């Protein structure tokens, strides 16, 4: 569960976000919408623990009813897919996925290959990530986060680089998996088509 | 403004061309450049030679072996007349190489001031056992000495057994340059002289010594006994005797070797050594050798080079060279062949730091073949 209380974000005296509070329970999917520059990505980064120097932040973040404001990013139990997510260039696709597997679990290549095959990307398993197209890259990033089995997931514009057909397949894959994981999910999107009908919406 | 600039340029060119023509005889002198006192001496000599319309240029080299390579290459390429090197400071194995490959001009001993040199003095006319045969002119003398800190050592060693006694009782306070450094090898030859019963054997080629050569074997045994008591337990050696000077001044070592009987005095004067530094040598005799000046076979200024050599062995120049305030390198001239006035020039200030003269017999360098034999055996034993 993710709870945010009285979130305030300022950029040089300009108020970006004021007194925003919300709770996302397990298995719930929320979509965060708003105009460009409203502070959606900034908010996600703050929840995640990535604070930027030019911003001032206030507000409490609780994960599973525990305050995580004082914890570093990797210990908050919050995972995030960035707008420009990065795969590691010294690893091939499968290695990137294995690296993302939960720390307490052993590396399971079969699981990674299964997930790739669900998106028909298994032929890229041993490829160098520099050879991937933009769409393949984005989808691998999504698969990487799925394999990480997060409890709380923040996603920033996940389907931007995809054509309509691929987007639908990917969306189905994505929503299916996060539902199975009972993950509390917050997705940023300004494209209303990407929102599923049963998504709840938070507007900035 | 333009006129001024043009005038300046013209004056500059006129001066430049005139200046170039002022010294039409540029002599390129190849000599080791590591010593400030020697460099200063040569620089002063160069100033004095300008009166004779000679521009002596000191090319400061790391090792005369570089010069030998240039001359070998010149010969190979048939450069017989336009060599760039006009004068070299040389002795020992490098002289042998030059002589063997016919890379030297001679005879060079017909110059005027050679009359002050005793032609019967074998030590001046045999270079590491190799007859000079007029191919080089003696310039200065060297003799094996021991320099020590008199506050640390009451009674300095003057025989090989005393040396061994000192070394074993004062571990870490003596060393010698690593073989195959020229001075390091000469120190071993000095020890060899101390060990052999018949010193004449060392004047014969090494091949005359039956295999295994007992003197060399004994020398290696001796070294094996003393090495554990040397500086760094014989596991590390200085690369040259110059490196031992600051070690001695800092009392890291208390005794070192040198080949200039006046080295201690010069270094004390320059602040490189403590005032308590003294000089001694082996009572039974100390190896002496000579260093020389020679002219390459293909120098284009041989007559000017001869003039330079003539100047450098003149009584005035030799007296300056022997002066411990300037260089302190012993003269090759026979004082008996000089006038009283000339002799007086050599009566420099007495110094307690120099080797007392005439107390330590002069031993000739062994035959040059012993050098390589000793080096090879040392490298085999300790490398």
């Amino acid at each position, binding site marked *: 569960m993710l709870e945010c209380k009285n979130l305030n974000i300022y950029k040089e005296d300009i108020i970006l976000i004021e007194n925003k509070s919300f709770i996302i329970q397990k298995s719930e999917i929320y979509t965060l919408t708003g105009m460009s520059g409203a502070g959606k990505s900034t908010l996600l980064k703050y929840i995640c623990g*990535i604070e930027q120097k030019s911003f001032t932040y206030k507000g409490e973040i609780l994960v599973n009813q525990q305050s995580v404001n004082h914890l570093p*990013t*990797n210990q908050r139990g919050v*995972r995030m897919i960035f707008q420009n997510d990065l795969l*590691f260039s010294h*690893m091939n696709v499968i290695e990137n996925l294995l690296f993302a597997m939960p720390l307490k679990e052993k590396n399971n290549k079969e699981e990674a290959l299964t997930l790739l095959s669900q998106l028909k990307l298994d032929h890229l398993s041993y490829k160098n990530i520099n050879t991937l197209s933009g769409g393949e890259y984005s989808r691998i990033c999504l698969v990487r986060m799925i394999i*990480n089995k997060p409890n709380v997931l923040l996603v920033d514009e996940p389907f931007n680089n995809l054509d309509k057909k691929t987007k639908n397949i990917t969306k189905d894959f994505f929503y299916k998996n996060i539902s199975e994981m009972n993950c509390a999910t917050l997705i940023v999107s300004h494209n209303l088509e990407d929102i599923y009908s049963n998504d709840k919406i938070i507007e900035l | 403004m333009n006129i001024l600039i043009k005038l300046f340029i013209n004056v500059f060119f006129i001066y430049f061309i005139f200046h170039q023509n002022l010294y039409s005889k540029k002599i390129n002198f190849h000599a080791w*450049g590591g010593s400030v006192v020697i460099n200063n001496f040569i620089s002063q000599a160069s100033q004095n030679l300008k009166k004779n319309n000679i521009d002596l240029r000191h090319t400061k080299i790391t090792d005369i072996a570089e010069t030998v390579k240039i001359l070998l290459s010149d010969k190979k390429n048939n450069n017989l007349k336009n060599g760039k090197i006009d004068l070299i400071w040389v002795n020992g194995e490098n002289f042998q190489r030059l002589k063997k490959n016919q890379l030297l001009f001679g005879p060079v001993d017909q110059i005027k001031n050679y009359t002050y040199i005793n032609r019967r003095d074998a030590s001046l006319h045999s270079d590491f056992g190799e007859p000079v045969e007029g191919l080089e002119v003696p310039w200065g003398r060297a003799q094996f000495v021991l320099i020590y800190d008199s506050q640390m050592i009451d009674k300095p060693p003057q025989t090989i057994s005393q040396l061994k006694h000192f070394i074993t009782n004062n571990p870490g306070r003596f060393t010698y340059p690593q073989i195959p450094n020229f001075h390091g090898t000469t120190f071993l030859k000095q020890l060899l002289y101390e060990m052999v019963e018949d010193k004449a054997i060392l004047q014969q080629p090494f091949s005359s010594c039956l295999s295994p050569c007992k003197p060399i074997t004994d020398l290696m045994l001796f070294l094996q006994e003393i090495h554990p008591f040397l500086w760094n337990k014989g596991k590390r050696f200085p*690369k040259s005797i110059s490196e031992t000077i600051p070690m001695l001044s800092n009392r890291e070592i208390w005794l070192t070797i040198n080949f200039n009987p006046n080295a201690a005095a010069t270094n004390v004067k320059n602040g490189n050594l403590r005032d308590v530094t003294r000089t001694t040598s082996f009572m039974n005799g100390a190896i002496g050798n000579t260093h020389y000046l020679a002219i390459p076979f293909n120098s284009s200024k041989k007559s000017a080079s001869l003039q330079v050599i003539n100047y450098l062995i003149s009584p005035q120049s030799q007296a300056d060279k022997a002066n411990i305030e300037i260089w302190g390198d012993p003269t090759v001239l026979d004082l008996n062949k000089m006038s009283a006035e000339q002799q007086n020039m050599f009566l420099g200030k007495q110094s307690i730091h120099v080797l007392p003269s005439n107390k330590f017999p002069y031993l000739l360098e062994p035959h040059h073949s012993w050098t390589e034999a000793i080096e090879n055996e040392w490298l085999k034993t*300790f490398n």
Partner: protein
Amino acid sequence: MNGLRHLIKSNFSYWIFLVLFGVIALVIGNICYQVISKLDTHFFLIHFNDLLSSISITFFNNIIATILAVIIAFLITNYLYNKKSFKSSFLIILISFPHISYCIGIIYLFATSGFFARLFALFYGNDIPFISERGDTSSSLIYVISLALREVPFLVLIGLSVLKKINALQIQKQVLVLGHSNLSALLCCIFPIWLKSMTLPILIIVTFCFSNYEFSSILGPQFPHMINVKIIDSWYSTNFNLAQQMNSLIIITILSSILALITLYTLMQILNGYLKNQKFLGFGNYNLFLLGKIFYFIVIALFMIILFITSLLSISESWFFPTIMPSSFSLRGFDYMVSNYLWLFFSSIFISSVISILCLLFVVILIETSKDTKNIYKFLFVISLMILVMPQNIMLISIANLMEQLAFFSVSLWFYFSLFIYIVPYTYFMLKQSYDDLNPQYIHSSDILGITRFKSFFLIKLPMMFNDFLLIFGVSFSVCFYQFLQGIIVTKGERGLFNNEVFILFSGESIQTASAGSMMNFLPAALIFMIISLRYRYVRV
């Protein structure tokens, strides 16, 4: 102007490249021919056997020094990158420190009568230095650590721009949001990616390790000597056995150097493979800043102390153990250097500057006049690799042999050529980095607007890359200015730089004069780097 435009339009760069390639191939081919044609296999095998201990000690010392340099450089780079402070600029100045001064300084620091021993004597009260017991093990240790620390500033300089290029901060954030720790980010991701981009600087370090003379002869072990020393000794030697060894030593050096490169590459691959799969690192939230900070200050402190000691030595008279400060001072050493070497000092600055600028212009013209820059980069990479793989001392021996055979070129020309060729890899590599950092959008936009390549270079690229050009000039200048093997091997004393004279003086009895020369030696490159660091302070990390 029209000629220049024509130059740009033609494939002029390929012709230049062919000539350069031809010359380097001739140099390398010559040494191979000389060595192989004169090689007595029987002799080689005997020598190889005798030299085994020397080969192994050289190999291991140099490999360990390189690995240590890389690790320390990475830790410091990581620290400075995250701190984003001017301190990195300060480290750049240390690149200008002459090798010989550094080596002598190390001796003066750690000898039993050295500076640290004198500080100790203040408390312990000993008037006489302790007995020195330095053997080959301690010598190897001193050699490895000193050489590693000496290379750190150069690696940090390059490493900082590499970290920026690979977007290390973004990688770190990416790793953190996957639940891994800072340590995992650093070691499993940033370090392997950084290492991959540092191949060419590491190659430069490795070949320097195998060809340097100062470190190996002054600090390295003696029983046996490292191969680097043996090769120069055999070059000088009149001893028949030692001189005979030279051909064998050349082959051994080249093979050892190549083997070292292969070994390091293999180690890199193994490390990469190992780190990728490590989970335990994910748990520890250490960022190694403290370690980086400690090493940073150690490196700075070491260089500063050496500089301080050298400056004291240059003006001291009668500075004997156990006094901390000299009892009297004089400028005799400087006076001697100025009276005797001023002209050489300034001409060395001039020669190094001209060669550095020419090299930079040469590479820039090659890149800018080529229609296909990708191929030109490949060609330049091949040339740089050819120059780097061959240790410098071997290359110079080859040039010296060529000089004998092609006697119609003057000694000076060969001297300048041997300096020029040595700095081509440094120039190319740093320039390539600079071109890669340039945002291609600017160039595409200028192309779309119809701006010619010529104008594009002067109006867009040059202003943006000017600081980089200055840095490249600074590094090339200091590399060139501190060369001395050329003056020994190629010109055999006939021509040399100021550094040659300083090197010769250190073999003499006057440490004061040699130190004064050393201080003068340090000045030009230090000034250049100070200017560069001031500009960088406001521009980069």
